[in-house]
């Protein structure tokens, strides 16, 4: 009898796979997604479904054009996750083509242009979000007041189709600013944060998600729940989320203490915008973040720092997407410099000195 000899060991393997990892991340996104579909109604569901399907179709198309096998890669969950995360970062009532163009950009330009899964330098969903934000600033910054399905203000099925596919969106009647956008606009009109924040959603509403904002970002609590699930399942480690959230919170708190009229406080920064989604689901993207824990800490601090700087000083009210992309560009450098110490060697790579030998 002869047996297979084709590779070195080990001849045992943990029950891990790319598909399992991606599926767990998608599962972790479910609570926040379901909540926000309920919160923003049918148009949000249409946009979400379209974005997701377009991501998968684009993936299939790219794989075919590249002459690569379709089935294993298409269903490994990575394209679905990109589409899903992109959808979560879009205004919930945005027209259909925002989702379609976004997904196409994410998969075709953000992922396959670099060589497909594992090769992209930048987070594809954030590439698409930033491309959309710069190209279509109007559609990308009209947010909706929460109008849960079945309650007053929630559009019916026909109206919803008109909103998503017909562009029937009554901007004046329904639009609302996100908390960050509101504070920034008021500040530019000379109204201090201490006054404007009174008209922004309450912190509790921000935490629960009962506030205007991007489709998937509003509920800090549910995103935290998903993030905790990923931590328990060891899909992500605490390093990036803790470093990013900690940095945003500390900077917000310190500068708020120095000048409360100019800077919102740390808790407001944490609970508004994409801070939580970014910390647990976007900055932790495997492909575009550092591989070593030391590097992940630095990366997380960098994302937090840039997020706060952009929110505080730049033209855009929200900075997570830009911060992530900028730090993505730093990842190769971080990976080069920050790595574990090799066993038996000093940090500089020299063998440890021999003590007590003859």
């Amino acid at each position, binding site marked *: *009898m*002869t*047996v*297979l*000899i084709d*590779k*070195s*060991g*080990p*001849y*045992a*393997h*943990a*029950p*891990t*796979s*790319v598909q*399992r*990892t991606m599926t767990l991340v998608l599962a972790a996104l479910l609570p926040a997604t379901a909540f926000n579909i309920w919160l923003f109604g049918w148009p949000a569901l249409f946009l979400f479904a379209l974005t997701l399907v377009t991501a998968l179709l684009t993936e299939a198309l790219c794989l075919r054009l590249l002459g690569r096998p379709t089935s*294993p*890669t298409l269903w*490994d969950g*990575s394209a679905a996750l990109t589409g899903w995360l992109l959808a979560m970062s879009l205004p919930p009532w945005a027209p259909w083509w925002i989702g379609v163009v976004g997904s196409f950009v994410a998969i075709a330009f953000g992922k396959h242009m670099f060589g*497909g*899964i*594992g*090769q992209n330098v930048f987070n594809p969903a954030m590439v698409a979000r930033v491309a959309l934000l710069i190209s279509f600033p109007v559609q990308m910054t009209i947010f909706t007041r929460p109008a849960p399905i079945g309650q007053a203000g929630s559009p019916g099925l026909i109206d919803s189709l008109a909103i998503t596919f017909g562009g029937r969106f009554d901007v004046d009647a329904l639009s609302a600013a996100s908390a960050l956008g509101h504070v920034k606009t008021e500040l530019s009109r000379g109204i201090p944060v201490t006054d404007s924040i009174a008209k922004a959603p309450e912190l509790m509403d921000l935490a629960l998600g009962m506030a205007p904002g991007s489709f998937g970002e509003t509920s800090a609590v549910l995103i935290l729940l998903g993030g905790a699930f990923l931590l328990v399942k060891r899909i992500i*480690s605490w390093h990036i989320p803790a470093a990013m959230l900690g940095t945003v919170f500390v900077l917000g708190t310190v500068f708020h203490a120095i000048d409360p009229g100019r800077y919102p406080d740390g808790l407001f920064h944490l609970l508004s915008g994409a801070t939580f989604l970014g910390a647990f689901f976007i900055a932790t993207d*495997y*492909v*575009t*973040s*550092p*591989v*070593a*824990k030391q590097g*992940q800490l630095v990366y997380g601090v960098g994302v937090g720092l840039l997020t706060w700087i952009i929110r505080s000083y730049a033209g855009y009210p929200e900075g997570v997407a830009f911060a992530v992309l900028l730090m993505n560009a730093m990842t190769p450098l971080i*990976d080069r410099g920050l*790595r*574990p*110490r*090799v*066993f*038996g*060697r000093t940090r500089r*790579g020299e*063998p*440890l*000195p*021999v*003590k*007590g*030998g*003859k």
Partner: protein
Amino acid sequence: MKLFRVRGGVHPDYRKELSSEKATVPFPLPQRLYMPLQQHIGAPAEPVVQVGERVLKGQMIARSTGAVSAPVHAPTSGIVVDIGNHTAPHPSGLPQRTIVIEPDGKDEWAPLPAPVADHLSLTPADIAKRVAEAGIVGLGGATFPSAVKLDLRSRCRLDILLVNGAECEPYLTCDDRLMREHADEVMDGVRIMAYALEVQTVLIAIEDNKPQALAAMTKAAATLDGDIRVIGVPVRYPMGSERHLTLALTGRETPARKLTADIGVVVHNVATARAVSQAIRAGRPLISRLVTVSGSAVAEPKNIEVPLGTHVSELIAFCGGLTEEPRRIISGGPMMGQPLPSTAVPVIKGTSGILALTEAETNERPAQPCIRCGTCVSVCPCGLVPVEMAAFIRKENLEGAQASGVLDCVSCGSCSYVCPSHIPLVHYFNYAKGRINALERDKRKRDLVKRLVEARAERMEKIAKAKREALAAKKAAAEAAKAAKAAAEAAAKAAEGEQPAAAASEDKASA
């Protein structure tokens, strides 16, 4: 006792329950015994018997050659029927010089070295000599000649004997059973080795998943004087790796490219300790060992005391055969063991286990692209960045791989084990190590040739120079002689000339 932190590691599915409660059973006499001449690290042994000769149990049939080598002994009495090439228990499937013995069924012992009841009557050097003569090698799987390791006093300042009973590989239970069933013998060997090494401290490390072995060894240790501690270590692969175990227990980190002995610690396996005890107390050479036969494809997993040289196929048949076609047959554990080319290969000194693993157990899948999850970095016990090394090696950038530390990799397999993309990382690293070693060998060879050529050129130059100088000297001498001669001639001529001149003047005068 406080343990020191060791980074990384994984928690594989141990599956030790398949065989851990099976008491060891002796193997009945095999039909034929195949004794490869190289069952150890170092120079192969050299046969001292001839085909057709009758050998007795325990008789040396091949002698050690060189400083790092080990002799081979007959596991039973019988006739040497062949000394020739047979498939080695190695993934290459290459043939190796092997002595084949057909047992005569009498199991008749050869005269053995005299038993020593009091090892203190021997010198440490005597003990190392007897261990060498008994053909004992590291039975944990590394198969380095034990006597060499017992004789390190001259080279290193030693203070700790670390006895490795961690048995961190999944499936394997032979060390567990050994410690449970022969704790006294193991402890006796430990005492002898500590004496031979002249160390005062003995640490015996056993993973916490072997409570009975821990209890048995603790009990056995209590009967001895001196600083002997039995320590439970956390269950985490690769805890049994020599360097990592040393770090965990002593806080001493072995410098890169050095041995644990360089920092005062000698590590021996528990089975080696027992073999040492048998060699000293009974004069018995290493002719059998405990082997775990396990895996889901094996009908009845067992721990067996197997005569060395027994074919794996006989061993599997003894365990009720295979219940299904295995995906792999492994010698050793699933993490660091070697696949066997067939079951028609013998058990040798380093065979700790024979595993017949099913497809479900090996859970192999085609490799997918790396998603840079970084788990390999977290689990690497050596602090390496496997994802980066693999990227270098894929591009055949061996210099890059070397700079990123591939030669510090111990091939424990933790990275491959966890990789969600099922990338065979260790395969890459082993390939790179082999290539780098081959290149270095070539380079050394080239350097040697270059040195020789240069030395020759220098020598030739010297000779030529000497010749030239000799020639020049000769020429100079000749010239000097010529000059002298010329001068002499000139002088003579002058003298002669004076005379004619004088004569001429005389002539003139006369004219």
